[in-house]
């Protein structure tokens, strides 16, 4: 049913936030402001996040001065979502992107869309904004039709104006004063036809880049509020350390120092200037005495340690009957703990105001959940805490952002009045951010006589990959306080999109399979969501195995994948990546190999295949990816260059994880504390070229992009090394030592 056919009745005038919003209500029960306590029928499902925030004016506001504001609960993380959402809104509102002010994640202003995570912003927020914008435009046209006494089809909209054929026109701002946007959205919208798109599907330059390259205020790190003080925390030297004593007097006597804050194991210093704060932090740290104890597993025996931590098993997939045959491949793969490693350590600003309310500026992925956790930590009502997202450095999942926000909030309550800016030091970010969990993957697969996969048994051992707030116990400051909060006990949950088991179930057609997640509730190292969660290591293990099975079957690995793949969109990316790479071209030169990797992210989102040419220096064990050629299908395209940028980045970051990265620790302390003890990809080792080919899917749902490359890229590196040296590597990362020992240069 179209909203245009509804009778529109004037409900009244309500004051909006600083503007006059004239609101109407549909003469339908479910569209009323105050729904009955017991709805007679369950609400209809609305597209994307509209289902949670159902009123159009939660998403789009048009003011009498013809200004347009669009609201999203999602946050810019450097992934370009701000630009893509502007494109979607501009498209369906028939305006230019620069005509729109986009307000992102802010508990005071925007819808609650949970976390900006899981490559879901386009599906959730993009879909909501697109549908809301289309419905708003339909309402504007309908209102204009009424005023002009013509049919809506006689009208066109452009440049924030509705035009009649006879030359009459009314701006959106003039129309909206007689129009309602405070109505529930409808389940169906009339979206633009793919052929009529003007803004979507084109590479609009990112709106955030000019400020970033000219020294504009671009990050929470750049926020300078009047009277702002700087703070640094002194974090414990090891995860289980307890603060036994500290002499604050030396730090307190230092120039500029305003306060030393101690609350249990939480220790911080506040000073007027930033470098004074850093110096005072060092002095304070030097006088702090900690009681440390061994709490970490034996890094030299991680596979056994992970298996010892298993408490529960979940069945991810089960079909047919497993068998063993002559053509059997059995292997154990390992992924270490790995860091997010944003180049700028986490930062936040908080201010406790005289009215008892608290403002927090943070690069959190979830302003609403973070607000709930901070309010719980401080025993404040949620409505007294206002969390505003500002960009941080990188993100890549649950890093130290929420912790820095909690630090700033806690300090602000102890030093009220002036804004408090906290930035973590490099060694704090490396040592204390929640890591991507270590994982152990065991595969036992066999081929039938025809060379098809006959049986597939797959077991993955992993912690949960999400310990986000969710409760004050997710915040370090809350755990360190004298009255500490405990982290929520993690639970094993088998869901379609997966977690530690993300992409553990291969998309290939395999009649007999069993996939298990061996769940480890105890987390001796703090872990949480790192880009792609379990998909990175699961796809690495699965796609390595697929290559070994192809070798056993004496079939080209790309052919082998296609033999086992029914999904046409999966086949399309596999074929396109292979074709553009020149997979059937001449043999690789000596010490070079080619490798392939594929996955459909979460088995329900973007399809990505990548082929790589990999060079191995036998003497040194150094591996370099020479070129990577990928193909991606992430549904309808909003910003092709945005998709390319994210995919190139995903490929390079995955190469870095795969070749270099593992958190080091002894039984007590994390020993990867900087970029020399945790090396990552440097320019000397980046490929000569990285190509991203996008398959257009006009009219199809958005599938998200950001995490699709992580698993396939790791697999392509692994398979490329296998092809170059004839030996398979099973343990991530593929360090020089491991490669050298594989080629016999130990």
């Amino acid at each position: 049913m179209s909203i245009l056919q509804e009778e529109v009745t004037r409900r009244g005038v309500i004051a909006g936030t600083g503007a006059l919003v004239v609101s109407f209500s549909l003469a339908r029960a479910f569209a009323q402001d105050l729904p009955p306590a017991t709805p007679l029928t369950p609400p209809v499902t609305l597209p994307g996040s509209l289902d949670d925030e159902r009123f159009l004016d939660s998403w789009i506001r048009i003011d009498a001065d013809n200004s347009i504001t669009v609201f999203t609960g999602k946050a810019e993380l450097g992934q370009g979502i701000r630009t893509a959402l502007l494109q979607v809104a501009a498209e369906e509102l028939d305006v230019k992107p620069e005509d729109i002010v986009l307000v992102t994640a802010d508990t005071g202003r925007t819808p609650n869309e949970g976390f900006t995570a899981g490559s879901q912003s386009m599906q959730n927020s993009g879909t909501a904004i697109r549908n809301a914008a289309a419905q708003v435009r339909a309402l504007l046209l309908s209102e204009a039709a009424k005023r002009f006494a013509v049919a809506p089809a006689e009208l066109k909209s452009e440049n924030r104006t509705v035009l009649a054929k006879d030359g009459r026109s009314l701006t959106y701002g003039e129309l909206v004063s007689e129009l309602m946007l405070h109505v529930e959205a409808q389940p169906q919208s009339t979206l633009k036809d793919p052929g009529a798109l003007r803004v979507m599907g084109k590479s609009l330059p990112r709106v955030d880049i000019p400020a970033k390259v000219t020294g504009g205020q671009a990050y929470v790190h750049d926020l300078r509020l009047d009277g702002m003080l700087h703070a640094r925390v002194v974090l414990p030297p090891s995860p289980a350390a307890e603060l036994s004593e500290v002499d604050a007097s030396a730090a307190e006597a230092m120039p500029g120092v305003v306060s030393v804050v101690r609350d249990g194991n939480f220790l911080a210093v506040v000073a007027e200037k930033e470098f004074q704060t850093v110096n005072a932090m060092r002095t304070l740290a030097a006088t702090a005495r900690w009681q440390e104890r061994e709490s970490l597993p034996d890094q030299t025996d991680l596979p056994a340690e992970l298996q010892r931590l298993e408490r529960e098993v979940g069945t991810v997939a089960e079909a047919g009957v497993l068998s063993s045959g002559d053509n059997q491949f059995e292997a154990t793969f390992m992924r270490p703990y790995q860091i997010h490693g944003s180049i700028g350590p986490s930062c936040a600003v908080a201010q406790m105001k005289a009215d008892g309310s608290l403002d927090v500026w943070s690069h959190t992925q979830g302003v609403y959940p973070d607000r709930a956790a901070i309010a719980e930590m401080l025993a404040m009502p949620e409505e007294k805490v206002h969390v505003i997202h500002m960009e941080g450095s990188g993100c890549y999942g649950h890093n130290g952002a929420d912790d820095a926000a909690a630090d700033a909030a806690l300090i602000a309550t102890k030093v009220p009045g002036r804004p408090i800016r906290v930035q973590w030091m490099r060694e704090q970010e490396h040592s204390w951010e929640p890591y991507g969990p270590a994982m152990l993957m065991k595969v036992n697969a066999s081929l039938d006589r025809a060379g098809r996969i006959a049986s597939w048994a797959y077991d993955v051992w992993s912690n949960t990959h999400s310990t986000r707030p969710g409760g004050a116990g997710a915040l370090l400051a809350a755990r360190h306080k004298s009255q500490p909060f405990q982290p929520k006990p993690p639970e094993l949950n088998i869901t379609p999109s997966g977690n530690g088991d993300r992409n553990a179930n291969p998309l290939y057609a395999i009649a007999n399979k069993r996939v298990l997640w061996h769940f480890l509730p105890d987390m001796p190292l703090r872990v949480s969501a790192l880009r792609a969660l379990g998909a990175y290591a699961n796809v690495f293990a699965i796609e390595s195995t697929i290559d070994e099975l192809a070798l056993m079957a004496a079939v080209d690995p790309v052919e082998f994948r296609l033999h086992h793949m029914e999904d046409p969109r999966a086949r399309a990316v596999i074929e396109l990546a292979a074709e553009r790479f020149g997979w059937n071209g001449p043999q690789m030169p000596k010490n070079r190999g080619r490798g392939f990797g594929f996955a459909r992210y979460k088995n329900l989102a973007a399809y990505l295949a990548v082929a790589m040419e990999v060079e191995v220096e036998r003497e040194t064990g150094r591996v370099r990816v020479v070129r990577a050629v990928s193909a991606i299908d992430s549904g309808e395209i909003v910003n092709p260059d945005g998709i390319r940028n994210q995919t190139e980045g995903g490929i390079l970051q995955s190469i870095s994880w795969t070749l270099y990265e593992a958190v080091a620790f002894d039984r007590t302390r994390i020993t990867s504390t900087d970029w020399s003890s945790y090396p990552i990809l440097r320019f000397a080792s980046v490929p000569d070229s990285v190509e991203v080919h996008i398959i257009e899917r006009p009219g199809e749902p958005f599938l998200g992009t950001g995490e699709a490359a992580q698993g396939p890229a790791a697999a392509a590196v692994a398979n490329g090394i296998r092809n170059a040296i004839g030996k398979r590597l099973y343990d991530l990362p593929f360090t020089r030592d491991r490669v050298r020992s594989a080629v016999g240069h130990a």
Partner: protein
Amino acid sequence: MTISLTVNGSSHAIDADPATPLLYVLRDDLGLNGAKYGCGLGQCGSCTVVVDGEAVLSCMVPIMLLEGREVTTVEGLGTIDEPGPLQQAFIELQAAQCGYCIPGMMMSAHALLRRKAQPSEEEIREALTTNLCRCGTHMRILAAIRRAGELMRAASLPGPDEGRTG
């Protein structure tokens, strides 16, 4: 103690401990956003600025060593309304994801391009040895620096031997 610093062509009297690393003075005293704190250890390059034509890690250099020397930050390369060639090139090629490392990359490139108008691919990579990027924007950063070189040569600005500052 007051130290006189010349940043982007302007002279500033700085009242700070002479041992203060330049980075903190740029951000805290002068309110400049371009140079970023990344590690404070000289390992990541996000704080890179140019001092007398050389790329320098501002987190490592105390201001007492900088009197009488010419400091250039990314703010000295142009403005959002009138971006300089390096800034134009990074915008044109969309060479940023989160963008936090980018000003440091640009300053390393600025020092290189002043020294050599048409650097080889090897020389560009070599100039960025210290600079880390975590988003994986490397290919675009390399392309943007090549493009900036083209823009500078097209404008013949600055020539290899011209002592243009800023």
